[in-house]
């Protein structure tokens, strides 16, 4: 511990109690070993880890997880939010639907939805809710939930043509929300003339999303970068990575300012380590 340079911790965004728990430990260590603290934005952590792992130069970033859904592009020392969800995050939408149809949480609800979706045969009609550069997901969640109360909904598929199975709903939900995300990502790419897409966040490990994004990117002579599961999902090393980048530019968080905040916008960070 005496040899380390600094202690990086998540300043936000996120849930208050877990954030505060980490901050307390970070502060204690900082005082014990006399090391500076570096507060890090969670979203910037995802972005910097994605850039480091994939080597993408200047991608449009789609950050999709249980808590966040944003399309981000870098410009003049700021990760600017081009588009985002107007209500709930896409991972939240998927996870809550998994609960509605009683899917297991092991290994994760999102993974199980992805597997069930592969067995879906029917695309049911769901609202397609892009709003300019943004998306709205809570209405889609209500709509797909309403199908489970439809008289055509059956747990087990049969040869009957007019049945809707949970697999069909998983498939339809994914296709709809992922198409929306691909659209708003494409808008950002067109806006800034970028040919690279980087997908970060837990939902980024969904292979169907990666595939759909890849089709769009290829049509634009571009490519998609995605990290493997270890780095898509929240992890500590991404905080260390982003923290180190800002520490090297002379950034530190004084003890009195080492509070946490549940709302910390990605574009509030001064990205001093990039031109």
């Amino acid at each position, binding site marked *: *511990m*005496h*040899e380390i340079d600094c202690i990086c911790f998540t300043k936000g965004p996120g849930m208050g109690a877990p954030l*505060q*728990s980490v*901050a*307390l*430990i970070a*502060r*204690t*260590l900082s*005082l*014990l*070993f006399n090391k500076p603290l570096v507060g890090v934005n969670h979203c910037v952590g995802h972005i910097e880890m994605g850039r480091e792992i994939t080597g993408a130069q200047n991608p449009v970033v789609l950050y999709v997880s249980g808590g966040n859904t944003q399309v981000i592009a870098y410009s003049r020392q700021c990760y600017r939010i081009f588009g985002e969800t107007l209500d709930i995050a896409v991972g939240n939408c998927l996870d809550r639907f998994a609960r509605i149809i009683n899917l297991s949480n092991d290994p994760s609800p999102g993974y199980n939805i992805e597997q069930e979706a592969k067995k879906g045969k029917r695309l049911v009609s769901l609202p397609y809710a892009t709003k300019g550069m943004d998306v709205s997901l809570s209405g889609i969640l209500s709509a797909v939930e309403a199908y489970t109360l439809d008289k055509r909904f059956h747990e087990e598929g049969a040869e009957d043509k007019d049945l809707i199975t949970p697999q069909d709903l998983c498939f339809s939900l994914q296709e709809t929300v992922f198409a929306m995300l691909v659209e708003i990502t494409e808008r950002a790419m067109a806006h800034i003339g970028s040919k690279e897409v980087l997908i970060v966040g837990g939902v980024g490990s969904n292979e169907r999303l990666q595939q759909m994004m890849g089709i769009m990117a290829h049509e634009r002579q571009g490519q998609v970068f995605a990290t493997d599961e270890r780095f898509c999902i929240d992890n500590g090393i991404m905080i260390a990575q982003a923290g180190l980048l800002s520490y090297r530019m002379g950034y530190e968080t004084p*003890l*009195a300012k*080492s*509070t*946490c905040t549940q709302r910390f916008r990605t574009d509030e960070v001064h990205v001093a380590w990039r031109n």
Partner: protein
Amino acid sequence: MSEDWHSVTLKIPFASEKHALIAKQTIEVDPELQPHAVKRIITVEENVLIAAFSTLTIRLARLVANAFLENVDLVVRTLEQFGEEAENPPSS
């Protein structure tokens, strides 16, 4: 302070004054979530951490005392895990 406020004082001894001060400086950074209903004063006397709370309701007294103790617990466990290493810097 008006007469009908409730008060709770917690005194926690630490292994040393240094550790008690670390706990004070660590915990006092986060403000109380309801500053109009909870007044908090954290001090250190020798190796003892003292937290004096005044709260508007008895429920709040219970909540702030519990939260404070949970925070102290986290700091203590960190000090326990790393305290010895901190006392022994490598001689280079």
